[in-house]
C-alpha cells in the first residue's frame, strides 16, 4: 500500500547552494513561485491532482498526471536582447522502497497557440527525494512569446516550485544557471 509523505518529511536528495554570492552578476530578474500554479491538463486529470501548500501532487495510485505550468517572463523592452532560463523543483513522495519514478517535463515556447520551440528534461527520482530540472539560456524566438512547462507526473510525484529568469545572454549571466550548476544540475543544451 502506498502512502503519501508530506513534503516536509522528504529527505532531499540534492543539497543545493543557498543564495550566497561574492562575485558580481549581470543577472536579470528571477521570478520564483509555487508549483501549485500548475494546472491539470484536463478535468479528468484534475481529479488525480491534489494541490497543497507545497505544490501540486499526483494522488492517483496508478495513473500519471499531466500538468501544465504557466511561467512568468519579464522582458519589458523589445530592444533588449534577453535570454530565458527556467527551472522547476520536483519531488517524489512515494514511500515504497525502490519506487523510482521518471518525471518528464517539456519547456515549450508558445507564440499564440503555436509551439515555436521546445526542450525536454527528465529525471529518475527515488522515493523521498527532490531535485530541480532546468533549461538555461535559451534564446526566445520572439520577444512576445510565452513559456510553459508541461510535465508528466507518475503516482506520488509532484512539483513544488517554479523559477524563471530573463537575463542578459550567456549562461554566466543567468542566476538560475549558476544555482543549478553549483549543485551539479546541468541545465544547458
Amino acid at each position: 500500500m502506498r502512502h503519501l509523505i508530506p513534503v516536509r518529511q522528504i529527505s532531499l536528495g540534492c543539497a543545493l547552494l543557498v543564495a550566497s554570492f561574492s562575485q558580481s552578476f549581470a543577472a536579470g530578474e528571477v521570478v520564483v513561485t509555487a508549483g501549485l500554479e500548475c494546472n491539470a491538463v484536463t478535468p479528468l486529470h484534475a481529479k488525480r491532482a491534489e494541490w497543497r501548500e507545497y505544490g501540486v501532487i499526483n494522488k492517483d495510485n496508478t495513473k500519471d498526471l499531466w500538468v501544465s505550468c504557466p511561467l512568468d517572463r519579464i522582458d519589458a523592452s523589445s530592444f533588449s536582447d534577453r535570454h530565458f532560463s527556467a527551472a522547476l523543483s520536483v519531488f517524489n513522495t512515494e514511500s515504497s522502497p525502490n519506487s523510482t519514478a521518471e518525471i518528464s517535463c517539456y519547456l515549450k515556447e508558445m507564440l499564440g497557440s503555436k509551439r515555436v520551440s521546445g526542450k525536454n528534461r527528465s529525471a529518475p527520482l527515488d522515493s523521498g527525494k527532490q531535485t530541480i530540472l532546468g533549461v538555461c539560456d535559451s534564446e526566445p524566438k520572439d520577444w512576445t512569446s510565452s513559456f510553459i512547462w508541461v510535465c508528466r507526473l507518475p503516482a506520488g510525484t509532484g512539483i513544488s516550485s517554479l523559477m524563471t529568469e530573463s537575463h542578459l545572454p550567456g549562461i554566466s549571466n543567468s542566476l538560475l544557471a549558476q544555482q543549478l550548476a553549483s549543485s551539479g544540475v546541468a541545465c544547458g543544451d
Partner: protein
Amino acid sequence: MGCFWINPLKSVRQMANKPEASVVVAAILAVLFCSAPVLSEAHELNEDDAGVCPIFGYEDSTGVPLYRLATQEDVDGFADVIGDDCYLLDGVLHIGLLENETVESSLSPVTDLGPLEQLEVIGALRIGNVPGLTNLDGLHNLRGDIQFISIKDAPNLQNIDALSNIDAIKDLGHGGLGVVVERTALKSLRPLTNAAAYGDFWDFIVRENPLLADCEWPQDGTSPQSPIIRDNLLGCNSVAEVIEFAGRDRYELKVTALPGGTVSLESLAPGLIMTSRGLETGAAVTDPLNNASDDELRHWGSIPVPDGHYLELEASPESGYASLAIESDCFGGKQYFGGERWVISSMEDDCFFYASFQPDTAIDIDSVTLHSSVCRAADYANEQELMRREGGIQNAGMAPVEVLCPVPRLVSPNSWKLVKALYSNALGRLPDRYFDSRVRKLSSDTQNTASLIRDFYLSPEFAARGLSNEAYIRSLYQVLLDRSGAEQGIEYWVNQLKMGNSRNFVLDNFLASQEFLARTDAFADLTSPTQTELEIKFANDHPAPYAPDSSCKVFINSPNIASVGDSSKESVYFRVPSPAFSSEPLPIFLGYESAPALLDNYVLTCRLQPGVGITKLTLLEK
C-alpha cells in the same frame, strides 16, 4: 432596614466627647429625621443587641464610634477582634491610612476587604490613602442607609460595585452627611447614583478623578446643597455637565498610536482630558513610551465617550511613514480599516482603536501584484464553490472553502536594482536600451558605482528635470542610501545648497559617506531582501452581521534547502475579521522579520467563510 436609632448611651458619650453645638444639633436632627418617617421600623441599638458590634474607640473630633482598619492585617483580623457574629457597626468604618501615615515594614497596605463580608449595616464609610485597593469586594453585604461615604486617595480603585445595596444617604448621627470621592480611578459612581439621599444640607464633593465621567448624585430624595464637581472627565466637571449627560451610558475608547505617526482626536468636546496622562482632544496621540511593546501600547490611552457623541480620529503618519491598516473593534467585531480618518458616531460598548505605521516604501522595492484568480480550491471538488470575477476569487458557497494562492517573488541583483533606481528616481522614467550595458559595466567592474551615479546626476537629462533642492536631496537619499532621509538631514543638506555649495559638492559628500561606502560592496552582490511584506486585500459580501472570521496562513517553500522538514514551512497565521466593514477591499499587511532564501517562494492558504473573497495579492521586498 430604614435607619437605626442612636443608642442614648452613645449619644451621651458623643456629646460628652464632642461638645460642638452643630454636632449636637445634627444628632438631634438625625434622631428626629430618622424617627419620623420610619418610626414603626425603627428600634434602639444597644451594644448587647444581637448582631451589634462592640465599640472600641471614638473619633476625636466627633466622638462618633470609630472602627479603624489601617492595614491589611487589621482587615484580616477584624472578625477576631470584633466577633464573627456581629453585622451591625454603629459608627464610622475607616479603612486606610491617615494622611502622612505610613505602613510599618512588618505590615501591609490594605488590598482586600474580603474579610469584612460579615458587615451588613454601618453608620458611615471612610476610605482613604489606600493605593493598593482596586475594589470594595467584601463590603458587598452592606445594605440600608449610611450617613456618609468618603473615598479619597484610592488611585487604583476602579469600581464601587460592592455598594449596590446601599439604599440611601441619611443622617444617622455620625458626623458629616453626603458623598466625597477624590483622587480615585473610578469611571462611574454607580451604583450610588441609584440610591437616595435625604437631608437639607448634604455634601456631594467629587473631584480630581481622572477617569470619572459618570457622576450623577443620588437621584431620589433631595439634591445636594452646593455640590463640588470638578477636575474629572467630560460629563463630570460641573453641575451643568452632570445634568447634560445624565442617564447616558459612557463607553471607553482605547486609542493606541504606534511609532511612526500620530492619532488626533477631534469634535468631541473642547478641552476634553483624554487620559490620566493629560492628553486632550486636539492633541496628538503618539507612542508615549518610545518603543514600548505592542502590548504596552495597546492599553495606552483611553477616553470615555458618552453615547450620542461622535468622535473623529485621524491617523497622520510622520514624514517617511505611511499609515497601515487600522485595527479596531469599534464597529462591531475586530476589523481592519484603510484610510486615515474615521468617525465613531455612536458607541455601544468599550472598544479600541489601534493605529500603526510603516516606513515609506523605498524606490527600489521589487513588488509583484497578482489578481486573486490565481488562487484555487485546495480540494478540487470545491472549485465549483469559488466564483472568479473581475473583483477576484470569492467563496460563493454556503460552507467555508480552503483556498491556496501562489505568491510569486521577484529576485534581482543589487546592481540591477541600482541601475533601475537611477533610471526611475534620477531620470524619472523607464530604462532604455543602455540599461543592459550599464548593468554589465557595473557588474564587470569596468565602471565603478560612484562613476555610474555621477553619470546620471550630472547628465543633461537630469538637469532638464529641474528638480528643487529638496527633491534633489531626497533623490540622493533614496538612490544612494536606499532610504528616506530624516527631515533634519534633508534640511541640513538643503541649507548647504542655500549657502552656495554646489549640487556636485553635496553628491560627492553622499558618495564619500560611510553609509554609501558600506553599500557599495553590496552592489556587486546578489543579496536576498531583508524584509518581505505581503499585502492581501479581502472583500466580504456576507449578509450575516456576525459571521465567523476567516483565517489564513503563509507558507514558505524552499526548493533548494537540503535539511529535512524545511521545504515547506508555515510562517504566519492570521485571522481575517468578518464581516468586513464594507465590501470595499480590506488590506492586510504581513511583515516578515527574516529574509527568505534566494529561491524561496510563498504560498498563502486561506479558509474563506461564505461570501468572503480575496481581491489581490502584493508582495513587497526591500
